[in-house]
């Protein structure tokens, strides 16, 4: 396939336009980035291409010939493959079954599943991705998020040998959102292999550095319209950000606050837990401490220590001059606020109102019986402080965009002036504009003396936001670095540095 163009794409939901006359021109063998803030129309565009949502108007031409695209079957027939943002694998079944999920399993004697063939085909797909370290018989749920993402890609790759078609288009929607740096690298290799087959790749990401590394062309959407579209060499990061936001975002990371107060918020000395070893640090009020390392080196567990979710086995640990809380309820009471890693699974009650979501940990503050008026005022104040966008505070939080959902979690965490704020991937799947709001809020709270422990797979973000970074290797603390003169490369080298064996 040489060229694939989508023209005059328009879609309105209940009279509100989500896409207006958008054009997207893809070429075989090239990786095309689709960028835009949350709500710019990226998701709608992908849904139209997938045939999940029927566009009000759209012309599709493959190599100059018009093709129909009104249903998911049409998209399948046109050899389009989709890898969606959320990890939708079935954790209870094997890797091989996940890869062939939704397809007709090869059979023996007409009825029985031919397992050797199923496994062989799954193995072939993984092999192509360079991911032959994954055992096709393992349960998908036991794999790391990165390997799970590879399974999804493998699932998109698998073809029916009888109708041996190569895919013509791969759409990857925020594939690195759940991945660590190292896993992302593997994915970039895979993308290179996919485009080498002659297929077009449409790559949707908020991470501008990635886009400039691996993409050949970039199209930017804003408010449902084309803003710019060009080969990536002809533009710059600043220009793309301007195109996305319609404004200049000079420095993504706001200036650090004044030097910290001398008060110590938390102190850990040689702490050992089921998953962590040798953790020692002192966290001062207003300080931002980053926790970094390779995928699942214990970052989440270190945050969990302060929530009472990771019990301290030995060593000394004090929080605000007291023992560590024993469960999340006690932690919130003690002034610890937690922003969990997986916002939909661990953070939000999606069907419930924005107000209920913000107030969930703070219901005790007003006594036994609900005080409707005061609570509403508090929720409104917090959501305004986070610059959330919504129709009504009673709207289910699941209807909001990803960035606004994340802001709702921030509004929850910052309600009631926490003394320690735990942030696990605070800007995952959040657009540039919302990111800036979030960074500014984090700075404001640190300036007010709130201590912050932050972990993120986005290294520039860690370097931009943190005062110090604690490096973990397989649960062991191996370094505690000052961020002032630290580069990405320095930090990365610490992830891999051989740990000093004691």
């Amino acid at each position, binding site marked *: 396939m040489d060229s694939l163009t989508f023209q005059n794409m328009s879609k309105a939901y209940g009279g509100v336009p989500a896409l207006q006359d958008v054009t997207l021109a893809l070429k075989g063998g090239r990786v095309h980035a689709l960028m835009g803030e949350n709500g710019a129309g990226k998701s709608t565009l992908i849904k139209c291409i997938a045939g999940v949502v029927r566009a009000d108007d759209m012309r599709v031409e493959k190599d100059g010939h018009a093709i129909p695209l009104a249903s998911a079957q049409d998209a399948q027939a046109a050899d389009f493959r989709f890898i969606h943002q959320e990890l939708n694998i079935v954790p209870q079944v094997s890797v091989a079954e996940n890869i062939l999920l939704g397809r007709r399993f090869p059979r023996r004697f007409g009825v029985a599943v031919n397992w050797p063939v199923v496994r062989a085909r799954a193995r072939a797909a993984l092999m192509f991705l360079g991911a032959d370290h994954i055992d096709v018989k393992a349960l998908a749920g036991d794999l790391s998020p990165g390997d799970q993402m590879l399974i999804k890609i493998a699932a998109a790759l698998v073809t029916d040998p009888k109708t041996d078609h190569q895919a013509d288009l791969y759409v990857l929607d925020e594939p690195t959102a759940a991945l660590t740096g190292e896993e992302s690298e593997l994915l970039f290799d895979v993308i290179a292999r996919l485009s080498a087959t002659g297929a077009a790749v449409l790559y949707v990401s908020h991470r501008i550095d990635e886009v400039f590394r691996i993409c050949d062309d970039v199209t930017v959407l804003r408010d449902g319209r084309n803003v710019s579209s060009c080969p990536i060499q002809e533009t710059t990061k600043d220009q793309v950000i301007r195109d996305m936001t319609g404004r200049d975002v000079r420095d993504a990371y706001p200036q650090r606050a004044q030097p910290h107060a001398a008060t110590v918020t938390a102190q850990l000395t040689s702490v050992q837990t089921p998953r962590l070893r040798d953790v020692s640090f002192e966290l001062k009020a207003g300080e931002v401490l980053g926790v970094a390392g390779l995928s699942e080196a214990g970052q989440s567990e270190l945050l969990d220590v302060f929530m009472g979710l990771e019990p301290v086995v030995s060593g000394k640990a004090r929080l605000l001059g007291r023992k560590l809380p024993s469960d999340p309820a006690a932690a919130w009471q003690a002034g610890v606020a*937690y922003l*969990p890693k997986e916002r939909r699974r661990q*953070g939000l*009650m999606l*069907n419930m109102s924005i107000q209920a979501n913000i107030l*969930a*940990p703070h219901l005790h503050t007003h006594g036994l019986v609900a005080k409707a008026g005061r609570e509403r005022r508090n929720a409104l104040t917090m959501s305004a402080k986070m610059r959330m966008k919504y129709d009504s505070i009673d709207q289910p939080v699941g209807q909001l965009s990803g960035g606004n959902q994340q802001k709702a979690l921030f509004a929850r965490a910052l309600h009631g002036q926490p003394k320690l704020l735990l942030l696990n991937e605070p800007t995952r799947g959040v657009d540039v504009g919302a990111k800036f709001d979030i960074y500014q809020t984090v700075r404001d709270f640190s300036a007010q003396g709130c201590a912050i422990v932050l972990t993120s797979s986005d290294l520039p973000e860690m370097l931009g936001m943190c005062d110090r970074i604690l490096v973990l290797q397989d649960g062991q603390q191996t370094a505690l670095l000052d961020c002032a003169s630290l580069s990405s490369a320095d930090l990365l080298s610490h992830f891999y540095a051989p740990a000093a064996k004691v």
Partner: protein
Amino acid sequence: MLGFVAILVFFTIQLPDTFLTARNLINISQQLSMLAVVAATMTIVMVMNDFDLSVGSMASLAGIVAATLFAMEYPVWVGLVGALLVGVAGGLFNGFLVSIVGILPFVATLGTLTVFSGAAFLISDGKTIFGRDIPAAFSGFARGGIEMGDIKIPFLTITAGLVILVCWFVLEQTNFGRRLYAIGGNKEAAHLAGIKVKRLRLIAFGLTGLGAAGAGLMYAARVASANPTQGSGLMLDAIAAVFLGMTMSRQGEPRVVYTLIGVLILGILDNGLTQMQVDSYIREILVGLIVIAAVAIASLSKRSSA
């Protein structure tokens, strides 16, 4: 909601002389009072996406416990308190299995359904306890009421009304209730947001058990006897009522007020069809189909709007 009005209008037209009379409505309210109590307290666990299959056999057991205590010539209050304590204990046991041990509510309460039912047979020796063993002060309650002009509002109706009011207050006006909704919204997120999920689930099941026992006592008082199977019809009707109610709320969450409407729909259907002399087997088929239709329409319309 519209369906509810439609059913009312339908029976009013079909049964002009008997349906919409104060006497009949009071009759309905009294017949429904037990179901209303069970359904309202069932709502408490269903708010958390849990449910309790054991309420019917718990109601039977509570009636038997009270009647047995009466037969042993304890005063009335001892019988009542004893039965309610059994209810709380049984409910907490459900809660323990579901929340602390971590068994699925379906399996746990299916098990306790059998246990409670067996216990009721064991205590009563499989016989109905009636006649002189049941004190007049107990059964008289069910026949009494507050006179208002020429109509009498039965105590059973008033009791049900009070229980519904308390459940509504607890679920919608207290922090306890809103934490239960948060648990229903997302258990893991609720736990991480500092809500004591285990403890609250335990308490909620205890309350449902208490409600079931209360309904069992009301039933025993009304028929002035206790029999080890008399509560068994309550469980399915109560769950059906909550499901009907869930179709009316905005996000499909259970709410006490809508549960009450669900109870009324079931009761009015039953009463109206009986008066129209529809065969009781056909009546059951109709009621089942109407419940399915209501839930189906609600889920189909939700899908088209999403």
